[in-house]
């Protein structure tokens, strides 16, 4: 287990890469929520096929997932709780990114960069869930658990 899971490391620590990524995910969620609103700019055109309610739901979903992920990387007294929070966030985020990628691919199948980015985020979620599970098993083993 890296010290990242204890949170509160220096700025050069790899956990900050995750925090920046999760922060961006939250910002994407905010932009998706705002996409239907009359703004002077268009944050995303790719979700036009979705009804406004579902678009707002997807945006909130992404915000919620990213918030869970971010919260999980904070300093917790119980590391098991931090893992659970981050993994819950990752599950929500992975579902959100999968839905997002599908909606974009449906509307613009040739825009591979647009939906490929969401697929890459989905892959990040899957890998991170796997890494956290492995780390948890290793920690339980080191603590002498089953």
């Amino acid at each position, binding site marked *: 287990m890296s010290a990242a899971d204890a949170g509160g490391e220096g700025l050069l620590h790899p956990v900050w890469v995750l925090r920046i990524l999760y922060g961006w995910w939250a910002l994407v969620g905010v932009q998706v929520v705002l996409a239907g609103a009359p703004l002077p700019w268009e944050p995303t055109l790719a979700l036009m096929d979705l009804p406004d309610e579902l678009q707002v739901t997807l945006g909130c979903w992404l915000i919620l997932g990213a918030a869970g992920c971010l919260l999980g990387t904070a*300093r917790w*007294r119980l590391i098991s*709780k931090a893992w*659970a929070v981050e993994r*819950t966030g990752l*599950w929500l985020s992975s*579902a959100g990114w999968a*839905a997002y990628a599908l909606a974009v691919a449906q509307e613009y199948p040739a825009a591979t960069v647009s939906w490929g980015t969401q697929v890459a985020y989905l892959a990040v979620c899957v890998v991170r869930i796997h890494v956290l599970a492995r780390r948890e098993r290793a920690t*339980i083993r080191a603590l002498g658990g089953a």
Partner: protein
Amino acid sequence: MTLSPEQLVAIVIALLSGGAIGGVREWIKDRRRQPIDTSAALVAMAQSAGAQALAVTDQLQEEVTRLRGEQAQDRVATCSLRNRVGVLETELRGWGRWYAWLADAWPQIRLRPVAPEPPVSQMMPASQSILEP
């Protein structure tokens, strides 16, 4: 493949529901498990890493010991070979000198009724061949 808006909405809702179920499952799993204290986990992992490092060190130590043994054997073999090469060089020089003398004195020697003695060999008897270790 083109989906109708209704199908797309249904799939999106299904995906989001799947994510929600996954998230809830994580919470349930966490509630069933024994909580792990952060500092205890860090100490345990540090100890585990230390034990692993010690195991690697032990393995390396064994390897160094084995290599040292092999090196000592090689050194003995090299000394033995050097000795045998020295004996062969001496022998070769003896034969070289004897041949030079024979060639110089050949006109007289060929007329002798008795053949000259061969050079004195530095080598061990044939039963203890220096060519074999």
